[in-house]
């Protein structure tokens, strides 16, 4: 006797309870606090804020805790929360030239005003497991810099600008369209592309950026400048008639300097790719700048032999990890109705083919 | 006394607009069918139905064109306060337009969409003294056999239907009654 499976609701409740138990793990081990995650898993928090498009380290840390460290799941929690928030206004563009840099390096000049500041980087660490950390390594203190970190550090590209060696980006006061409030329309403006890339999956952008270096849309890039630090966020208050500072946020910014062969009307010049990400994420910022530059082929009159990173539709429709993970994972949902339709079709096609072969053999 | 522009909105925006939208959706899905909508208490000469549609569908993203007597200060203030919609004088910028048929006619300057985006077309709300399920015969999507509606014109609507898939879509309002005419409906006198 066949009885249809029932009890979906009970199963879901139980699954959630089990998930909660697994999240907490062994109760003999102290529970993680949100503050611990925020402070000691800061780069994970930064990634969740960047791809979640919401600057709130406490919420990002909570999301990481809730998601058992699955960062895409944490990003999803933040995105779903973000959508429910009311909007009070749009900030003025942040002035990254005024950034209080903790890190600022240029690959294009040995030195420049403001200097090279290495900052807290993994770059020259030897990747050897530090077993001291396993035994709760204790407190490390770094020597304080004598240099004034608040010293104004002009953008490196501004020096190239002085000579007219690098293409000037057009300025505009037009309101850019908002990826989260309007459906994507192609071809997309650069502002829209940058929005999509800024919240795009770090791994996807890394792969895309890497592919441009290996010849899939090659356009050799120098890191003109990479800077990480705090910038002020200002909001225009129409009632007051001026902008007030509402917060400081940490961002990573990368400007690449790329060759441009020039055209009939323009002599050769450098051009740039741009990356800007919440928090400390220079991998993402550099990748973003590479992909941004690759996507500019049309406006710069360059060739597009059909490489993935130059394909706006391909990049923009596939860089979002929340869209991607949902759709990729949804194929685990029941599809038995469609599968039944396919079963019937394949059975019919096989039956017809067998009969046709039999008829052919009988005729021979 | 309270400023009249701040009164006359929905008492419970989420529920009132949900109920009103379903009536509007039903009207658009069944051309000629007359439904009742209420919730808004708009300033004159706006009808309850037209005011309710505006509150349900308009916001800062929808430029509204107001015709004739409807373009008065009270209506503009009320609309701005409750919806945040901007009132435009250029018909080409309108997403919604409201007036009597005389105010709105000729209708060819309102956006009819583009071949790639036929949805980028205006919706016209036509205020009527009366609204009856009689008069011009309607056929097309949403109509089982035929329907009938008292329309102010026939040729203009036939021409509009001839633009399909481009074209305008219409609501007709009278008191608390509403009916609709999408671009797909064919008309015969």
């Amino acid at each position, binding site marked *: 006797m066949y009885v249809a499976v029932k009890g979906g609701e009970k199963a879901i409740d139980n699954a959630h309870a089990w998930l909660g138990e697994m999240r907490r793990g062994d109760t003999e081990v102290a529970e993680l606090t949100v503050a611990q995650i925020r402070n000691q898993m800061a780069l994970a928090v930064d990634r969740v804020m960047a791809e979640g498009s919401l600057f709130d380290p406490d919420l990002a840390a909570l999301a990481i805790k809730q998601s058992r460290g699955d960062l895409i799941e944490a990003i999803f929690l933040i995105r779903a929360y973000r959508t429910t928030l009311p909007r009070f206004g749009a900030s003025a563009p942040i002035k990254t030239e005024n950034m209080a840099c903790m890190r600022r390096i240029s690959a294009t000049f040995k030195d420049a005003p403001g200097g090279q500041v290495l900052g807290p980087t993994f770059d020259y660490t030897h990747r050897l497991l530090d077993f001291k950390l396993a035994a709760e390594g204790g407190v490390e203190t770094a020597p304080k810099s004598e240099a004034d970190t608040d010293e104004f550090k002009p953008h490196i590209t501004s020096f190239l600008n002085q000579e007219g060696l690098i293409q000037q980006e057009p300025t505009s006061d037009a309101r850019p369209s908002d990826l989260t409030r309007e459906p994507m329309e192609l071809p997309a403006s650069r502002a829209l592309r940058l929005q999509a890339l800024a919240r795009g999956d770090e791994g996807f952008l890394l792969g895309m950026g890497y592919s441009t270096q290996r010849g899939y849309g090659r356009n050799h890039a120098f890191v003109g400048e990479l800077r990480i630090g705090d910038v002020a966020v200002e909001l225009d208050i129409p009632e007051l008639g001026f902008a007030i500072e509402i917060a400081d946020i940490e961002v990573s910014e990368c400007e690449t300097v790329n060759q441009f062969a020039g055209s009939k009307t323009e002599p050769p010049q450098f051009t740039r790719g741009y990356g800007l990400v919440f928090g400390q994420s220079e991998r993402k910022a550099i990748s973003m700048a590479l992909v941004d530059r690759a996507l500019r082929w049309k406006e710069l009159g360059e060739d597009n032999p059909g490489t993935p990173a130059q394909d706006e539709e391909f990049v923009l429709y596939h860089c979002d990890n929340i869209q991607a993970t949902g759709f990729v994972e949804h194929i685990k949902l029941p599809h038995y109705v469609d599968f039944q339709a396919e079963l019937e079709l394949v059975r019919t096609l096989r039956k017809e083919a067998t009969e046709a072969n039999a008829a052919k053999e009988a005729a021979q | 006394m309270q400023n009249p522009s701040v009164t006359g909105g929905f008492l419970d925006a989420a529920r009132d607009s949900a109920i009103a939208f379903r009536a509007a*959706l039903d009207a658009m899905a069944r051309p000629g069918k007359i439904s009742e909508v209420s919730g808004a208490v708009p300033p004159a000469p706006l009808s309850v139905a037209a005011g309710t549609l505006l509150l349900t569908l308009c916001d800062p993203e929808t430029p509204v064109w107001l015709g004739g007597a409807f373009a008065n200060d009270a209506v503009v203030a009320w609309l701005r306060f409750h919806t945040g919609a901007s009132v435009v004088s250029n018909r080409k910028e309108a997403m919604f337009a409201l007036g009597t048929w005389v105010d709105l006619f000729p209708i060819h300057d309102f956006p009819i969409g583009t071949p790639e985006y036929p949805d980028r077309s205006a919706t016209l709300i036509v205020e009527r003294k009366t609204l009856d399920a009689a008069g011009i015969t309607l056929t097309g999507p949403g109509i089982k056999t035929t329907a009938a509606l008292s329309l102010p014109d026939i040729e203009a609507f036939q021409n509009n239907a001839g633009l399909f898939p481009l074209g305008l879509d219409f609501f007709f309002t009278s008191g608390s009654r509403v009916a609709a005419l999408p671009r797909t409906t064919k008309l015969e006198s």
Partner: protein
Amino acid sequence: MSTEYNFAYLDEQTKRMIRRALLKGVAIPGYQVPFASREMPMPYGWGTGGVQVTAACLKPDDTLKVIDQGADDTTNAVSIRKFFEKTAAVAVSEKTEESTVIQTRHRIPEQDLTEDQILVYQVPIPEPLRFLEPRETETRKMHALEEYGLMHVKLYEDIARHGRIATSYAYPVKVEGRYVMDPSPIPKFDNPKMEMAALQLFGAGREQRIYAVPPYTKVVSLDFEDHPFEKGGAPQACGLCDAHDAYLDEVIMDDAGTRMFVCSDTDYCRMRREAGHIGEMGVPLAEDAA
């Protein structure tokens, strides 16, 4: 009801945006209206489009039914139904005839729907031409120019290779003689039902598209004169309720691979069994419950 969220979860401005898209969708049957889909608290690909359409349509006195694969008790259907019970406090039902809004994934109920009902489809890929031409910029032009040759070529290649059209679900339709539309991945068995009294709304969240088929609209499954559309369906009757006219699921019963065919529309099956119909492998409903 949870008071932390607005009625039916979405904020009013989002609902207005979706509602405007729905009205244009109804006015241009089969045309995919772009809309600024929001991130929902469930994953993309799990019905976020349908959920947003339902949220924008629900009114407090609605009775909502949610089905996945025709069944009310599949986990994702349970989850979506629960979401609306919590955020909109609407009545829910498993009975097709009691429901005013039915959200579905992959099926159209067997019972004829009425003028007082809305059927909301969850759509994964709304573009019927997507697997023939992956570029949105290209397919949009094709729809604008009513250039559907590519689709006919694909169907004809099927016939050349297999002797028949080898599409068994998400079978493309032409709506009111104009737009070629993806009916969502329903089995082609359900295609003829799309000319119905109820309003049909389609939501694709990740792909940011909404479309509609008004009641009594012409919906024609694409075919050729010498290869007319066939809805297909299993030759068997439902093992539980003996229905001959329903879409059936195939269930593997034992290690020997014995098969049983049962209605995918669980409410339809229940209704028939309540009315006393007994299939070959079934028992009267009262004994089953015992």
